[in-house]
């Protein structure tokens, strides 16, 4: 996702990106809440269901962090309206399969990538609100990613999970595309605002896909999941 306008200030572009992140956090919160409900319906693991509920709450807090950053950079910029109806996984699948699909898409793929990106962002962030927000979000993203890997480990120990393999490339592509980056004319260095350039995002994404996501999935027989 590219965003930018050469007529805008760096602060305005950064605020716009953090506003998108704010909306995304609310949407992901809804997905985690749905995952929790599916985990409960599938009676997969009460601990995982509870963790998914907590993740949903975490995401609301993340959105509040994003809002503080937006307010610091561009006071008065109103929030975007989130789409809370996002459903991951085949709509006609059982609750158990839909839950596993969501856990993998959200935890194993998206949150793993997010963790790597946040680790990359942190050293460059100099704006106080941004540093505070990145630290808070990163703490939680590790846990959110582990929810996915934990769920996958449980289900792989119970049976074959290779049915997920055809969906992995789309999951990875969606996760990569979800990270907003500055676009437009002259390249801008917005790293002090916790925003990486498109090149850096691609580099980090390539690395985490190759070293973490694909090997992790292959561990459970989800092989051949290319980008």
């Amino acid at each position, binding site marked *: 996702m590219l965003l930018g306008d050469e007529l805008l200030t760096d602060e305005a572009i950064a605020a716009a990106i953090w506003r998108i992140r704010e909306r995304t956090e609310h949407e992901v919160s809804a997905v985690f809440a749905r995952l929790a409900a599916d985990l409960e319906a599938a009676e997969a*693991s009460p*601990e*995982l269901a*509870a*963790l998914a509920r*907590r993740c949903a709450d975490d995401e609301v807090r993340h959105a509040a962090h994003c809002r503080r950053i937006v307010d610091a950079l561009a006071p008065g910029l109103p929030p975007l309206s989130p789409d809370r109806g996002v459903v991951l996984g085949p709509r006609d699948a059982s609750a158990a399969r839909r839950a596993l699909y969501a856990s993998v898409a959200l*935890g*194993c793929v998206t949150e*793993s990538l997010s*963790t*790597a990106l946040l*680790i*990359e962002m942190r050293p460059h962030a100099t704006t106080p609100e941004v540093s505070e927000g990145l*630290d808070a979000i*990163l*703490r939680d993203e*590790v*846990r959110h*990613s*582990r*929810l*996915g*890997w*934990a*769920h*996958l*480990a*449980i289900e*792989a*120990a*119970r049976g074959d999970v290779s049915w997920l393999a055809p969906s992995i490339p789309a999951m990875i592509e969606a996760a990569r595309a979800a990270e907003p980056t500055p676009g437009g004319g002259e390249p801008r260095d917005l790293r002090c605002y916790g925003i990486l350039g498109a090149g850096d995002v691609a580099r*980090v994404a390539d*690395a*985490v896909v190759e*070293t*973490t996501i694909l*090997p*992790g999935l292959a*561990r459970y027989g989800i092989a051949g999941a290319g980008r």
Partner: protein
Amino acid sequence: MDTSKLFQVLVVGGAMLGLGCVDSTLASDAGEEPTDAVVAATDAASDVDAGEGTDCGLCPNELCCEAQPDGTRATRPGMVCCWGTSC
């Protein structure tokens, strides 16, 4: 950024925590060795201020924690909870 630790932190750490939620048969079938994973997780997560009192939502579990003679629980030898929680 060195992404090599993320596999241990996320994939192995997640697997250990997940398998701690289910019965020991599944855990042993999966062949997890509860030794390096959380240590590695700590190594990477030490770069993050985990704050106080947070927990991963999956504690306590038998893979990570064990009972002490005084009745309390603590992390198993060689393991450090990356979130700084107590068992």
